[in-house]
C-alpha cells in the first residue's frame, strides 16, 4: 500500500513537471491594433494581505471599464476584442517579475494595472520598460516609481507616500496638533514617510518633539506608548506610520494605554478599509488620515460605487476605483491614437486633463507620469453615524491637486 501510494505521488510529480505549456514567439504588431485585440492585464495580490484592497475587486474594476468602453463606442471602437486577464503575484517581487513578463510576452497584454507592494511594482515597471508596454500603478505607494525608477512606460495613478504624509502632516498641524511624536517602522517606506511627515509638520508651523524607529514586524509597541506622555513638551499627536497588522497592534495598544484621554491624538500614515475593519471603527473613530478617494465622497463617486456594488456586492476601495479610472483613460487614449502601440498611446496620455469620478482636477504630468489630483483629508466615522457596512470615512478637508502631490522629482529622467 505504502509503495503504491509513493509511486502514485512520484508519477504525479513527474506529470506536473512535464506538463509545461509550449512557448510562443514574441508578438509582432502587424495592424494598428496588434492581433486586433486589446489585452488588459491585472497583476495583483489575489490571496494575500492586499487581496481586499486590490485583488479580485481590481480585476472586476478593470473588467467594468472594458465593458463600459465597449458599450460607449459600440461599432466605433478601435476593436471589439477587449480581454481582461489576471494573475496572482502573492506579494513576491520575483513572482510579479515572471508573471509580468509572461503577461506581456505570451498573453500579449498591452497594459498592466494594479500591482500592490512597492518591490513588486518596481519590478513590474522594469519589465514594462523592457517589453515596451504600459503599466499603470494604482496600488504601490513608493515615490521611487515617479522618481529614480520612473520610465516612459509606467504611470502612477492613485497615491504615493508624499500624498499620504503631506496631507495628514500639514492639515493636522494647521488644525492645532502642533507637537508630534512620530513612530515609524524601520524600513524604506517607513523612513521615507517619516521624512515627508516631518517636512510637512514643520512646514505648517508644527514641531516634531521626538521620533523613534520601531522594529518591523513587531507585536509590542508599549515601549513607545509609555514614552509618549513623558516627553517634554507633551506631544499633541502620535503619528503612527505603521501599516497593516503592525498598525492594528499600535492601535490596540494605544487604546489600552488610554493616550487619547491623556490628550494625545492619533494620526496615521496609511489606513485601508480592511485595517479599520480589523481594529474596529469604534476604536479608530476620529483618527485622521489622507486618502486618494473614498466611495462616499459625493454623488458622482457614490453613483459609480453603486454600479460597482451591483457587480460585486462590495463597496470599492480607492485602489479599485483608480484601476477603473486608469483602464478607462487608457482605452480612451487607444481610441484616440487608433493604435495600441505603447509609444503612440503614451503621447495621447501625457499631459492629459483628467476629471472623472475618481480624479478631480487631475493632470497626467508628462515629466514624471504621475497623475496629480485632489486628495482628501478624512477621519474615521463614528460607527453610529455610518450609513451602511463599509461606510468608514468622512471628509474633513479637500487637498487641491496642486498641493496634494509634490513637484516632479529631480531624480526622474525619462529615457
Amino acid at each position: 500500500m505504502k509503495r503504491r501510494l509513493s509511486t502514485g505521488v512520484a508519477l504525479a510529480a513527474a506529470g506536473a513537471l512535464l506538463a509545461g505549456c509550449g512557448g510562443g514567439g514574441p508578438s509582432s504588431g502587424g495592424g494598428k491594433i496588434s492581433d486586433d485585440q486589446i489585452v488588459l492585464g491585472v497583476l495583483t495580490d489575489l490571496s494575500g494581505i492586499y487581496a481586499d484592497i486590490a485583488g479580485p475587486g481590481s480585476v472586476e474594476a478593470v473588467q467594468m471599464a472594458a465593458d463600459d468602453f465597449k458599450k460607449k463606442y459600440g461599432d466605433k471602437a478601435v476593436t471589439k476584442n477587449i480581454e481582461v486577464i489576471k494573475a496572482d503575484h502573492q506579494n513576491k517581487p520575483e513572482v510579479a517579475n515572471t508573471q509580468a513578463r509572461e503577461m506581456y510576452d505570451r498573453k500579449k497584454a498591452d497594459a498592466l494595472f494594479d500591482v500592490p507592494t512597492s518591490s513588486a511594482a518596481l519590478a513590474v515597471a522594469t519589465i514594462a520598460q523592457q517589453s515596451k508596454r504600459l503599466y499603470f500603478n494604482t496600488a504601490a505607494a513608493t515615490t521611487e516609481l515617479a522618481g529614480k525608477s520612473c520610465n516612459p512606460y509606467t504611470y502612477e495613478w492613485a497615491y504615493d507616500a508624499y500624498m499620504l504624509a503631506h496631507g495628514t502632516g500639514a492639515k493636522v498641524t494647521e488644525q492645532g496638533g502642533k507637537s508630534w511624536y512620530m513612530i515609524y517602522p524601520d524600513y524604506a517606506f517607513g523612513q521615507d514617510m517619516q521624512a515627508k511627515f516631518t517636512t510637512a509638520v514643520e512646514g505648517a508651523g508644527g514641531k516634531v518633539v521626538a521620533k523613534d524607529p520601531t522594529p518591523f514586524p513587531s507585536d509590542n509597541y508599549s515601549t513607545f506608548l509609555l514614552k509618549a506622555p513623558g516627553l517634554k513638551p507633551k506631544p499633541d499627536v502620535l503619528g503612527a506610520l505603521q501599516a497593516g497588522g503592525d498598525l492594528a497592534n499600535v492601535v490596540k495598544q494605544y487604546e489600552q494605554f488610554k493616550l487619547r484621554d491623556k490628550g494625545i491624538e492619533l494620526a496615521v500614515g496609511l489606513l485601508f478599509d480592511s485595517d479599520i475593519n480589523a481594529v474596529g471603527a469604534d476604536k479608530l473613530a476620529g483618527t485622521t488620515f489622507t486618502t486618494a478617494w473614498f466611495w462616499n465622497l459625493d454623488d458622482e463617486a457614490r453613483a459609480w460605487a453603486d454600479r460597482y456594488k451591483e457587480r460585486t456586492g462590495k463597496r470599492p476601495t480607492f485602489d479599485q476605483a483608480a484601476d477603473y479610472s486608469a483602464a478607462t483613460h487608457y482605452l480612451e487614449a487607444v481610441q484616440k491614437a487608433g493604435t495600441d502601440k505603447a509609444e503612440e498611446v503614451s503621447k495621447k496620455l501625457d499631459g492629459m486633463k483628467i476629471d472623472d469620478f475618481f480624479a478631480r482636477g487631475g493632470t497626467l504630468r508628462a515629466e514624471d507620469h504621475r497623475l496629480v489630483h485632489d486628495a482628501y483629508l478624512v477621519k474615521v466615522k463614528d460607527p453610529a453615524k455610518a450609513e451602511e457596512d463599509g461606510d468608514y470615512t468622512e471628509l474633513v478637508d479637500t487637498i487641491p491637486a496642486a498641493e496634494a502631490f509634490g513637484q516632479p522629482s529631480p531624480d526622474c529622467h525619462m529615457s
Partner: protein
Amino acid sequence: MILALAGALRRYPAGVRWGLLAAGLLAAFGLPWVLYPPVAADILCWGLFAVAFDLLLGHAGLLSFGHAAFWGTSAYATGLIAIHSGLPFYVAVLGGAAAAALLAAPIGYLAVRRSGIYFAMVTLAFAQMVYFIANQWGDVTGGENGLQGIPRELPGVDLSDSFVFYYAMLPVVLLGLVTAWRIVRSPFGRVVAGVRENPDRVRALGYPVDRYKLVVFVASAFLSGLAGGLYAVNHGFASLQEVYWTTSGKVVVMTVLGGIGTLWGSLIGAAAVVRLEDWLSTAGFEETGLVTGSVFVVTVLVFRRGVWGTLAHLLRYRAAPGTAEPEPHLEHDHDDTAQRVPS
C-alpha cells in the same frame, strides 16, 4: 564535465547510467523549449540550491533551516557587484557566492557546535537575523523595495532574451552540480558521511569532526550562493523574499520531496515545486503553501525516500527483491540516543 556526470551514476548499471545522463542533459538543454524560459531558468537556480542544500542535509546529515541567508546574501552581493562594476555576470555571481561563503564561516562555526534539532533552530535564527539586517540596511539593499535594476552583463552577447540567458547560465549550474558531486565522492566526502553515521567513531579515528562539518557547511553555502546570484541576475533584482525564512523552508521542501541524500533527486524536487507554483499562480489558485505543505506532509509521513529515492528503491527492488534500500539517515543529537519506545 559529461564524463564526470556519467561517473556520478556509477552505482547504477551501465544502461541505466547512460540513459539517465542522456535524459538529464536532454532535460537541461531542452527545458527552455518546453517551458517558459524565465521559469526554466528558475528551475535551474532552485535546482542547484536544492542540490547544495542536500550536500549538507543528505550527506553531512545537518538540517539547516537558514539557507536563505546564503542564497539571499549572494543575491544582494551579486546585484551590487553587477550594478556598480559592470563586470560580466559570471564575475558578479562568483563574487556573490564568495560573500555567501564568507558569511557561512562564522554562522557555521557557531552552528556546528550543536547538532540535530538544535542545528536547525540555530541556523533558522541566524538567517532571521540576516533578514532583519537586510531590511534595516535600506541604503545598500533597497529595503522592502528590493535591489532593483541588476543588469545581465556579458561582453558581446545580448542577454536580454531569457532564452539566451538560460544557455549563458547553464554552464555555471552544471559546474556547480559537478562540484557538489565531486565533494560527495571525494575522500573528504567519505569522512563527512562517516561523521553523519557515527561521529564518535570518526572523532576517535582522529578526524576533527567539527571542522569537517564546517567545511561542508561553507561549501554548501558557496553553491547556494552561486544559485542565489544567478537567480538575482535572472530576475534583475534581489528582494527581502530571498533572505526570508520561507525561502529556507522552500529549499527544505524541495530536497525532501526529491529525496534526501540523493543529490539529483533535489533537482526533480526543485523542478516540481517551481512548476507547481508557476502553474498555481497562473491558474489563479492562490494557496500555494497549502498545496506544497500538504504534499510535503505526505512525503514526510509515507515516502521519506522522496521521488528519486523511491524510484531507485523500486528499480533495485525489482532487480533484486529483498535488498531494500534504507531510508535516509539523519544525524542524531547526542542526547537523543534514548528513543522512546512506541507503545
